[in-house]
């Protein structure tokens, strides 16, 4: 069963790469139009030290932004989930904020915190990824069936007790669903700053240098490295979900 769980996604990836290679080969595209997977490994190997340093910079800042998004998103979600008034008040603000293209926010942030490259990057990863978390926590809490609350309330349980025993665990599956979306969004946030306001840090910077030097295979290799890190972080979330919300998974029928 475990072999199966590893083999199926791996074969899907292999199949995808083979299809890509074939597409480039059949069309005889030069690699400035579309690099093929076989060009990527040499590009990666040539700059492997850079990939390592820049990759780490991108990863830790993304994870830091994500942590911030979890804390802040959960807090906002709890406020909106428990109070109808706050929900009505905050939703338009949140949706409006989320609708702003984040690329336009990068220069603003860069001006507010001049030179604070790490802070800027983390902030952007956070801003782009907290929304799904806030919405899912708020929906999870506000759709709690009243009977669940009544069971504990009729015993004289405090609000905190109801939250800890029922609302929190019941919201976990929705929370993890949102976290999976947030993980990929956070990478977009980090790279937006790294590409638009390059400070010589992160994979976004490597991508930008590759673009300036017209090193197309390197550009693609960066994208693949980002995809790889996204997948890695996604599976970390999946593992956490199994531990904390494994009960929500139904046995296959």
């Amino acid at each position, binding site marked *: 069963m475990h072999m199966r769980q590893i083999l199926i996604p791996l074969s899907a990836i292999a199949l995808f790469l083979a299809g890509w290679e074939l597409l480039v080969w059949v069309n005889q595209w030069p690699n400035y139009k579309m690099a093929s997977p076989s060009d990527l490994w040499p590009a990666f190997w040539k700059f492997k030290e850079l990939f390592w340093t820049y990759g780490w910079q991108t990863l830790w800042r993304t994870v830091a932004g994500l942590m911030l998004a979890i804390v802040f998103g959960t807090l906002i979600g709890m406020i909106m989930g428990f109070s109808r008034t706050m929900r009505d008040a905050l939703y338009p603000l949140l949706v409006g904020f989320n609708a702003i293209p984040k690329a336009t926010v990068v220069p603003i942030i860069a001006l507010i915190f001049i030179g604070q490259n790490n802070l800027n990057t983390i902030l952007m990863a956070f801003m782009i990824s907290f929304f799904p978390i806030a919405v899912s926590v708020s929906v999870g809490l506000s759709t709690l069936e009243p009977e669940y609350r*009544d*069971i504990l309330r*009729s015993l*004289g349980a405090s609000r905190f007790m109801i939250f800890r*025993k029922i609302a929190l665990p019941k919201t976990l599956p929705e929370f993890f669903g949102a976290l999976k979306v947030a993980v990929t969004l956070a990478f977009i946030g980090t790279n937006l700053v790294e590409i638009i306001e390059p400070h010589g840090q992160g994979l976004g910077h490597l991508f930008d240098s590759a673009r300036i030097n017209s090193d197309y295979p390197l550009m693609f290799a960066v994208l693949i490295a980002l995809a790889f890190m996204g997948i890695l972080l996604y599976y970390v979330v999946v593992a956490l979900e199994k531990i904390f919300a494994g009960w929500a998974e139904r046995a296959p029928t």
Partner: protein
Amino acid sequence: MTDKPLISIQAVSHTFHTDSGPLPVLNSLDLSVHKHQFTAVVGPSGCGKSTLTRLIAGLMKPDEGEVWLHGERVVSPRATVGMAFQNPVLLEWRSILKNVMLPLEIVAGNMPKRERESRARYLLKLVGLEGFEDKRPSELSGGMRQRASLCRALVHKPDVLILDEPFGALDAFTREDLWQTMHTLREQEPFTALLITHDLRESIFLADEVVVMSGRPANAQYVLPVHMPGKRTLEDLYTPEATAMLATLRQQIQIAQGRS
């Protein structure tokens, strides 16, 4: 029964304020249930039966009138009430055993875990769920889940058991099984109960007294004492006496619906 009733509802009126204007649901309702008595409440849909359960549980305060429990006025929730609803509302992330133990975690925080567990196991055995203690609710049938829900309502030995249509969503055969289970539980764990139901046969099979609520805004329109001596069996529902009681109740419901 000359002693004071355990549940006493005195001239209770309540009005909901909805978007389409005020909706009076209870109008000067009087009702009392004595210790170890089982009272069923029947009535037309939307006549405020569920409101009644929330008032007794202290989850709501009435606009007018008073609710008394055990000689004390109910103004807030109290640990001496057990509730079961049509939806068994079991917590999916807990085993059946842990679900049943939940009320004890709230009201008996200093009770040793071993005692809580043996109390829950004892009740689960009574309702025929022995061997299912470690299962998740999703692995059980609807009837079994409702049995577990009943155990949870009784685990902390509440003075009053409030049952809001707990068998309403079950198929007819499962429902009849659960009726028998209620009698078993009552024999082993004497309790005072108020049952809200739409099923007239259920009301006379389980209760000592059936209260018919009038249409909205509701009061107690009619009270039917149920006389079925000895241990009740399903056959008792097909005697001439039972048929007569059912006919009376049906007639009263029709009056409550304003159709006669």
